[in-house]
């Protein structure tokens, strides 16, 4: 990616915090500019503020008025140039994040990390903390 090109931006809509945290960090490490949200409405807020992401990576289960499917349908109609990727659960989010990293924008100097395994460890740790 040349330095003259704007950084590829991803709006990551994921209501589960530990999935969002790990996936966002992973995508940033891969060179993407990541905007984090939890609601379908966050897409509209971003557009209304004058910013348009290149990619929307959204869980099918979103908080707010619309779910991921409805949001994807709406974006295809109003902003057909935006790539929408829908995910479901930990495995889906991890798989799509790893695919995006394989495509760039920067070449990773390390072997793709198992995003899914890391999220599961954090979830287990949180469950243990909640029990104690």
């Amino acid at each position, binding site marked *: 990616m040349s330095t003259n090109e704007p950084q590829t931006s991803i709006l990551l809509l994921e209501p589960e915090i530990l999935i969002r*945290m790990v996936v966002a960090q992973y995508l940033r490490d891969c060179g993407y500019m990541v905007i984090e949200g939890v609601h379908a409405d966050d897409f509209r807020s*971003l557009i209304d503020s004058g910013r348009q992401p290149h990619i929307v990576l959204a869980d099918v289960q979103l908080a707010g008025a619309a779910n991921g499917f409805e949001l994807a349908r709406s974006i295809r109609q109003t902003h057909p140039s935006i790539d929408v990727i829908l995910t479901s659960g930990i495995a889906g989010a991890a798989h799509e994040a790893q695919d995006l990293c394989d495509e760039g924008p920067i070449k990773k100097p390390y072997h793709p*990390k198992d995003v899914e395994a890391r999220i599961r460890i954090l979830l287990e740790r*949180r469950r243990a903390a909640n029990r104690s």
Partner: protein
Amino acid sequence: MEPSTAEGPNSENRRKRILLVEDDFLIRSSAADYLRNAGFDVNEAVNAHEAMAILRAGTTIDAVFCDVNLASDMDGVAFSRWSAEHYPKLPVILTSGEPSAAGLVTEAPTLRFVAKPYALSDIERHLNTLLDGK
């Protein structure tokens, strides 16, 4: 080499990590952008429960910047009390548009109150001061 994650090595040279707790999407994303450009790593939480989950998962956090008015059953003041109980050395900056909220904040070496509207450069300065003292 592994990608740097929320649990990077606790070396002197690593970037300081800020936990940003703010329910307003646009305020949160612009503050997070600013702090990342200022050289911090930033974890974003939309409410106190997300912030607690991030800390409970063992994420290394150096300081918290938290709105008082959060769209959930736990506000920023309650979160700062929880944080002081479980992570007594963790610096917390609370912010609110209501000046009366300052009165709810108990003075402590690790706790600061900054009134809204704030300049992000002021938040950066407060964070650097709090983190320098660590």
